[in-house]
């Protein structure tokens, strides 16, 4: 059974590249343009991993992560922050909230795929 990945970002061009890549690596890809869309999807699906942007309109990455961590159903879900924020304080904040990895923009798609694979298996 293929793994499910949820990509949450408000930049359509980034999302498009990631979607193409992960689909090619046999993932079931779900797309959300912000936190609220992500939460809506989460209610129907429990992905194996979430790629989560932080700076988004409406519900941002931190809030989405909170939702995930607060719910027992998503205990096994891994989360990677994808963000332009690269200050130590931001990284620490994310790690403290229980994020599994932190990838700063701009990133290498290949490395991201490897990281996702490693986290899941």
């Amino acid at each position, binding site marked *: 059974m293929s793994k499910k990945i949820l990509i949450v970002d408000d930049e359509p061009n980034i999302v*498009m*590249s990631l979607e*193409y890549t992960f689909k090619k690596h046999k993932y079931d890809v779900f797309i959300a343009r912000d936190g609220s869309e992500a939460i809506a999807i989460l209610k129907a699906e429990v992905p194996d991993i979430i790629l989560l942007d932080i700076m988004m*309109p409406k519900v941002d990455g931190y809030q989405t992560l909170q939702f995930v961590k607060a719910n027992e159903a998503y205990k096994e879900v891994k989360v990677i922050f994808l963000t*332009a924020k690269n200050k130590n304080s931001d990284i620490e904040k994310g790690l403290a909230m229980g994020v599994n990895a932190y990838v700063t923009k701009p*990133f*290498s798609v290949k490395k991201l795929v490897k990281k996702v694979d490693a986290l899941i298996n």
Partner: protein
Amino acid sequence: MNSYSVISIIILYLLVLFGIAYWAERKAKKRWVNNAYVYTLSLAVYCSAWTYYGSVGIAARSGVSFLTTYLGPIIAAPLWIVVLKKVIRISKQHKISSIADFISLRYGNNRFLGGLVTVVCVIGILPYISLQLKAVSETFSILTSTPLTASTSSVFTDTTFYVAILLATFVAFFGTRTVDAARRRQGIIFSVAVESILKLVFFLAIGIYVTFYLFDGTSDIFNKISKTDNFESLISLTSIEAGINWYFMIALSFFAIFLLPRQFQVSVIENVTEKHLKKAIWLFPLYLLLFNIFVIFIAWGGRLSLGNTVNPDYFTLLLPLKEQNTVLATLVFLGGFSAVISMVVVSTLALSTMLSNNLIIPYGFLDKFSRSHPERIDYYIKNIRRIAIFSLIVGAYLFYINFNIQLSLFSIGLISFVVIAQLAPSFFIGLFWNRGSARAAKLSIISGSLITTYTLILPFVLDSIFDNATYIENGPFGFGLLRPYQLFGIDFLTPVTHAFFWSMFFNILVYLAISLASVGNYRERNYAEMFVHSNAHYLQENAFVWKGEAYVQDIRNMLYTFLGRRKTDHALHQFFNKYDIPLTTERADARLINFSEKLLTGSLGGASSRILIASVIQEQPVSLVEVLEILEENKKAISSNKTLTQKSKELTKLTEELKKANHQLQLQDKLKDEFLDTVAHELKTPITAIRATSEVLKDNEDMPDSLQQEFLSNILHDSKRLSKLINNILDLEKLASGREIFDKKEHNLQKTIDRAVKGILPIAKEKQVRIKVSKEINIIKSRYDEDRMLQVFTNILSNAIKFVEKEKGEISIRYKRGTNAVLIQIEDNGKGIPKEDVPHIFDKFYQSKNQNLQKPVGSGFGLAISKHIVENHKGKIWVDEEVITGARFNIKLPCK
């Protein structure tokens, strides 16, 4: 005129004065009562009946020499800024209540000296007061055409006696309201000021009457008088000797303006603030000049109309009476009466304070006081002063009845001046020379007074009262060199200047010689330093040097006896607070002792308070050297303290400024950090997309062509976005730093707007948005950089297109012309700007807090750039908050 009507006028007039004084006491804190004009007018208490009547007499008898009495004060006035200011400052510091207090304190709070000065003043002034009473009774008799009766019948039928008693009552009522004699008496001073106006006005009235009504102006009088005998001698100084006399007379009145007890009272004790001196130094001389304008013409007019048979002192009354003008004569009488009242009132007030504080209390009542209750003491002190007031006035009256009738106003006045002048060396030299000693002061005053008695008072009394002139002509026991009017053969001076010269000569000689020869004790040197260096801040309470043992409780108990518990506790509490001394302190220091002395000084006089304080403390003598050393140390300590305070203040200020600057920097730093953060974030987003997309393209050669094309156009789009962003950032920084140079020229605004609309039209058409531009027939011209202004309009228009709904969107542009500005309004019917965003939309990178919005398309720089551009053109850009639907942008630009 009927004597009863004159008496009723007198009584009415006195009642009015009482009323005025009472009113002024009630308004004691108001500006009406405490201003420089009242102060200056109160100084005019100098112009007594002697001025009012006597000047005319002198002018008629001996010409312009009457002027000397006024030239002295006029010369003295500019010096007030230095001398009087210093005296006032010292007096306020030490709560001095009279000239006797002042001199005695200067010489170490010397009881004997205070008493001596008091005696000299009483001897000098009592006849002077009686002279005023004489003027009242003589003018009364002239006005009512009744013969002088005082010396022949009972005092109880003499109007003057009753006037004297009424005046005493007035002084007793308004002068002894508080025990503290250093306190001001607004009631008396204000009534004196009013009297000063009245006497001047009435005197000018009679002057104008005589000069322009009885005669045809000044030249008419001059022409007529110049034809009489002896005229030359009246208007000129005929010899060197006359010049010397003239000079001495000026010196005499120069001293008088400082030293007369009444002048000291009004100019020092009743002074509200040193600032009033500034006005007084020109206004008071002006007053004196006004007073003297008509003197000479009245005198000449009187000589011409009345001849040499009547007393020229009363020309001012006799001239209108001769013309049957009783109204004017009555006014003149009231003017003279005013002069009398103010002089008598202030003189008695000053003398009674001196008598009580410097003679009666320190020499007689201290023991009794120490055993009484505070309320009783207040009562005693007030009564002593009241008795002194009545005794002085009754004494003056008796003096007048017994001796004065034969004497002219002028001679008695001058004798008074010479007697008072004996205080001059101790007063003036002591003020500026710290070596002047107490013994020197005592002996100089005594010797000067003795010489005055010998050369002036004695012969004067023998000659005018006992008609015995042999002693004057031949000298005592026929010893010619000792003839009182030509002592040691000096025969060219008038008796007054002669006495003045010799008494001053010996007075100053004794003062200087003894001061130089003897070393004063430490206490007097201590006060000498405080007086001479009164301006120095280091010489206040700290300057009092004292050594020995004293307990706060003893001093407190003593103060209880004299001031009462409440007042004492209040005063001591303030003192302890001021110097930050713990309230539980047992030992008293020099400051407290000095402070306590000052507390008592106001009511008891300096000498008494020193004696009282000395009785409860164990003082050890201090050597003179120690005094000087301590003062020097004080000076250094305080000046270094001052420097320290100054430095620490500067430091605090600097720290404060640094903190501020630091805070500012931090804020700027933070803003810059945030800015860089945002810039980085904004730049990273398209870069991330470009990188990811390129990577995908590179790694997936098998990708279908259509998808490849899509990915490539995405890269193109993000690259464009990136370069636009970079351009905007650079643009904004250029604008914000002011490095951008605008190419401002005169343009047609409508044309520019049309160009902007044309430029944006393709996007508008795409979204089917309508743009309406209002018609404005008149051409609006304005100076601006057209490319930049196009940027502004395009930015706002494209924002509007972005935020309106497809197909329904409408944008309208309107102009509103003012006189030298034009308002351009660009309004749309889109979703509008959330209220909380309105204040921030012109900030760079501002992103709406309203999370319901999609992330705004664009850089977030457009409005920030627009704002910079508009403001650089001296314009304004803002959005209206009250618009319910859509957004309305306003741009105001200067135009022609």
